């Protein structure tokens, strides 16, 4: 029986790094596709409860709403697979968006230059995280928690704590955001929301990095066993620094998309988004302790959270209750995930 599996698997070209040895269909569905089942079940429930749920406009709306979380969650996936955690995702988004918006609306920079500056600043901030953690040898949790405050402060300094562009300062210079930026957040191509396209591109890039580059393989290796990775010649510090740098870059892009969608940036935006990204990653089956995970799982996880928020809105569930339900769902999924892992190990 065992041998049959082996030969079958060898013939099949496997693209993803398998997180376990497939057994029968029940195993495959239950143990691997946990979040996908959740997503389908939840969608079916909302579709039956509300006639608006399964309309094209609503589905596209869900995608538009989750796109920023999704972009940041791509970065968070890489960070968590490397056995780290980035708690400064929210401020990084605010920083990237604010810097870009300030450059474009107050300094008169064109869209591309402004966007480039915003992304680069966020990336530098990300590198700061990485250097603190890798060179300063402090826990990832502490490093990014500290920077969470610092980056938010920098964003506040840059924007003077005001929305950008703001009525108070807009009069002096060109006080509006370039149409390209607004399109990035709110536009569409053939009805497909532009932010969703950005998110899908970022997912594709992340997949490529994780599956098709030695850097990606190093991310899995240092997350799985840091010492073994080091003994195999992998530069652990360098990999860590770049993972956090990439996290900054992704967040910078996410910040621009968010700014475009709201037609305004402010230093306090994307508050609490780090927890949403972590939830999406963990719901997607990535091991919170590193070494295992897929970008596809994160995609499902983020969509699941988007569907939940959207569906509860459609059902007119009170916002306070929405928070409660959100929390319960996240914890339930993780409990299920732990159960799944125990099953896989024993």
């Amino acid at each position, binding site marked *: 029986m065992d041998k049959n599996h*082996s030969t079958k*698997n060898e013939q099949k070209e496997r693209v993803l790094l398998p997180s376990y040895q497939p057994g029968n269909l029940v195993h495959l569905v239950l143990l691997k596709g946990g979040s996908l089942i959740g997503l389908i079940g939840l969608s079916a429930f909302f579709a039956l409860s509300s006639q608006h749920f399964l309309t094209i406009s609503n589905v596209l709306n869900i995608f538009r709403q989750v796109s920023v979380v999704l972009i940041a969650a791509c970065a968070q996936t890489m960070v968590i697979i490397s056995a780290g955690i980035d708690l400064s995702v929210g401020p990084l988004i605010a920083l990237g968006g604010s810097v870009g918006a300030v450059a474009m609306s107050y300094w008169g920079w064109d869209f591309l230059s402004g966007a480039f500056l915003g992304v680069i600043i966020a990336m530098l901030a990300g590198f700061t995280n990485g250097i603190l953690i890798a060179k300063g040898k402090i826990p990832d949790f502490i490093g990014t928690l500290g920077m969470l405050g610092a980056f938010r402060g920098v964003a506040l300094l840059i924007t003077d704590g005001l929305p950008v562009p703001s009525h108070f300062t807009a009069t002096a210079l060109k006080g509006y955001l370039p149409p390209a930026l607004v399109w990035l957040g709110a536009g569409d191509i053939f009805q497909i929301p532009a932010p969703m396209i950005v998110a899908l591109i970022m997912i594709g890039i992340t997949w490529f990095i994780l599956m098709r580059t030695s850097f990606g393989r190093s991310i899995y290796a240092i997350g799985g*066993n840091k010492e*073994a990775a080091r003994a195999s010649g992998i530069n652990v510090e360098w990999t860590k620094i770049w993972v956090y740098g990439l996290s900054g870059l992704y967040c910078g892009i996410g910040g621009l998309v968010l700014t475009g969608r709201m037609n305004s940036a402010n230093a306090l935006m994307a508050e609490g988004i780090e927890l949403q990204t972590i939830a999406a990653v963990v719901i997607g089956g990535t091991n919170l302790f590193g070494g295992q995970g897929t970008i596809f799982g994160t995609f499902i996880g983020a969509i699941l959270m988007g569907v939940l928020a959207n569906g509860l809105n459609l059902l007119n569930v009170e916002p306070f209750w929405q928070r409660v339900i959100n929390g319960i769902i996240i914890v339930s999924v993780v409990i299920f995930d732990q159960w799944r892992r125990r099953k896989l190990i024993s």
Partner: protein
Amino acid sequence: MVNPESTPTLVIKNVSKKFPGVEALKNITLDIYSGEVHAVLGENGAGKSTLMKILGGIIPRDSGEILLENKSLRLENPRLALQAGIALVHQDLSLLPYLSVAENIFLGRWPKKGISVDWEKMNESTNQLLNRFQVKVDPRALVGTLSVAEQQLIEILKAISHSHVKILLLDEPTSALSGEEINRLFQILKEIKNEGKSIIFISHKINEAVKISNRITVLKDGEKVITDTKPNLDEQTIIYHMTGKYINLKNFHHTPPTKEKTIALSLEEIGTKFYKKKISLNIYQGEILVVFGLMGSGKTTLARGLFGFETLEGTIRLFGNPVTINHPKIAIQLGIGYIPEDRRFGLIYELPVYANITLAILKKMIRNGVLQIKKEHEVAKHYVQALRIKPPNIFREILYLSGGNQQKVLLARWLAREPKILIMDEPTRGIDVGAKFEIRNFVKGMVQKGLTVIYITSDPLEAIEMGDRIVVLRNGQIVTTFNNPLGLDKSEILAAASGVHYGRENDG
């Protein structure tokens, strides 16, 4: 001792266990009598550990019955197993280093005086227990300050300090112990046995099993092959039952190079901050240099130092050129490979076999910045076949491979890089006979092709079998070099390593 007429203490009846894709145990039936030491032997993956875990309540059985003194046991968790009278002593120690010996032994059931702990009573009871087995340890000493061997004894005493325990399960009890410590352990096991308790232990070391057990059970592929009393099972027969083939333990030697020797690695006055004494040594190309030493001899420090994990003082020359190795990356670039003492420090358990094999050659697997996955698969397949890694599935995660096969993967990783020098630290410790044999033979084959191997071991028989030369290390110092180990007696090596003045004194 074992009286077949008497009723067995523990009856294991038709116990089976399936894991996804593997039948780990098939209808195991086994009786254990009171006051017997029962060895369970088998290659890795034969089901020994599974059986122990089921008895210890760590994993549930799928079917079958387990009776202790005619009472059917459910064994749902380790606590219930202990309550029923079965205590499992873990392979990796589970003591708390910052608590005292007494506190550890009575963990969870500290004697109370009112609401406070009765320290005097606890230390006194511990003292009695220690005296009973002649273990000379202070009950107040922190466990973390004890040697590994002492910690293991404490762990065993902790298990039998529950007076109702009738069955003691030991998982590889001697794997971390040196010769003298092993004898002491055996002495204690004998005393436990004399108290009427039964001991079931699993081990890779067949000679030890033969030495201390009354009866031996051999498992193969989850099935019981045989249970018999010792006189009927000698080492050769046991190996036959375990592997299904006869292995001639003698004819392993390959001919050492006779041509003029190139010095591959030359160590001049090497030492560390901890080991003040210096080592000077030449290692020739195409030879297997065995570094033999017991625990604390500095052999692992030397290996780690040569690979850049520790700072070494002195001069290292690689093919005549002086080199500074202060990071594994540099060692790898210089063509040095390293298989660590503990494979858990070498493997990435979450990654499949192929990714573990290509981990050190990722740079070569890239074209235009893109990993050539197909090429990776080819390389991995080549080594899986060459080293006969089982199952022959390169997508399987390392976690699901047996210890011997994991070790082969680690070996494959370095061979794929084609190193000039391979440092292997205890490469066959804790793996089954078949894999041991295959790994040793493969290494010898590679040496014929020009690989230089520094082979570190604390098993004297392995040292004699593998070494073109044997260097014996003690307290960070070379005490003896055996230039022609063929026909050497293991007692000579052990004597040198343990500081007994005896044996040939050759100059290396």
